[in-house]
């Protein structure tokens, strides 16, 4: 008959495991990074810029943040809270106002011929060297919020579902109607000596 092995004392195993646990708690992070996703335009040589055709003024929505973090929308002093409504008005042009962008008929999957803004219609976000980053981000946030709300609205009306629940083709169709066209212009000296 084999001899019975003596049982070893496992009470310090817990201590070792606790030590490992605390090590991992300290050295790792759990936060999921999130933020405003944007795409920068391609780099163009400053010498080539001359060739771009001029865009009609009614097709550009100028949002300008100066060095004192004041917001000018199309030359008018505006509060950040009002920016979203103004952006939506620009992007839809509900009353065919002559100061708001032109529209054209375009064939869109799921929708058929649909009135969309011309390709050249763009939201131009300009800032000064002295603008605070926080303000800049809250302005960008409002612009993106306006586009997201329009997409959500359209999605509810057409498909009866939230935009996030649509499949890729349907999302693409809506993206074609409301593209996220925000141009972040080169900095200029605005407001101040």
């Amino acid at each position, binding site marked *: 008959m084999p001899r019975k092995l003596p049982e070893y004392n*496992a*009470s310090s*195993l*817990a201590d070792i*495991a*606790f030590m*490992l*646990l605390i090590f*991992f*708690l300290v*050295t*790792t*992070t*759990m936060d*999921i*990074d*999130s*933020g*405003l*996703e*944007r*795409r*920068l*335009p*391609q*780099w163009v040589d400053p010498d080539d810029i001359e060739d771009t055709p001029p865009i009609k003024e009614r097709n550009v929505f100028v949002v300008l943040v100066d060095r004192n973090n004041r917001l000018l929308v199309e030359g008018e002093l505006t509060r*950040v809270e009002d920016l979203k409504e103004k952006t939506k008005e620009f992007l839809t042009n509900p009353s065919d106002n002559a100061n708001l962008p032109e529209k054209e008929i375009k064939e869109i999957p799921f929708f058929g011929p649909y009135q969309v803004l011309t390709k050249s219609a763009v939201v131009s976000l300009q*800032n*000064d*060297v*002295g*603008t*605070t*980053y*926080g303000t*800049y*981000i*809250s302005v*960008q*946030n409002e612009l*993106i*919020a306006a586009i*997201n709300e329009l997409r959500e609205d359209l999605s509810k009306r057409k498909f009866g579902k939230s935009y996030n629940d649509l499949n890729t083709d349907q999302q693409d169709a809506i993206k074609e109607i409301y593209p996220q066209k925000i141009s*972040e212009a*080169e*900095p200029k000296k605005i407001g101040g000596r």
Partner: protein
Amino acid sequence: MSKFRKDDKKETPGISTSALPDIVFMLLFFFMVSTTMRETTLKVSITLPKATEISKLEKKSLVSYIYVGPPTNQYVSQLGNEPRIQLDDQFSNVNDIIDFIESERQAREEQERKQMITSLKVDEYTKMGIVTKIKQELRKAAALHINYSTLKGVER
């Protein structure tokens, strides 16, 4: 003495702790799986701005980080209070960004390079001048997909 009464010294048995390591190991594995290692020590202090229209960065392996903010207390005496750029573990200049992006690219698999995202972690009170310079450098380096890192919440 009654014959049914056993000896008076009745002891409560000690609680068995043999399952404690199992429980702690379970916790340990949970944290090992659900968290990620902190790769860099921050040398700049950053308070992220808040935004509502945010999207999550899904694949951490594809993200490279650029930190911008005023140096933390221990570096203030050498560098002052002006916002600085931090790449990896050191303070850098705007001109280093192209090299940084290039080396980040080399570290990734060929087919993953197109999906790379640059996350800008910038302090709320930084002036846009430095951010614009960084953006221009990123355009030159053709790292066009960026993410302005923000917290979720209603802006002031």
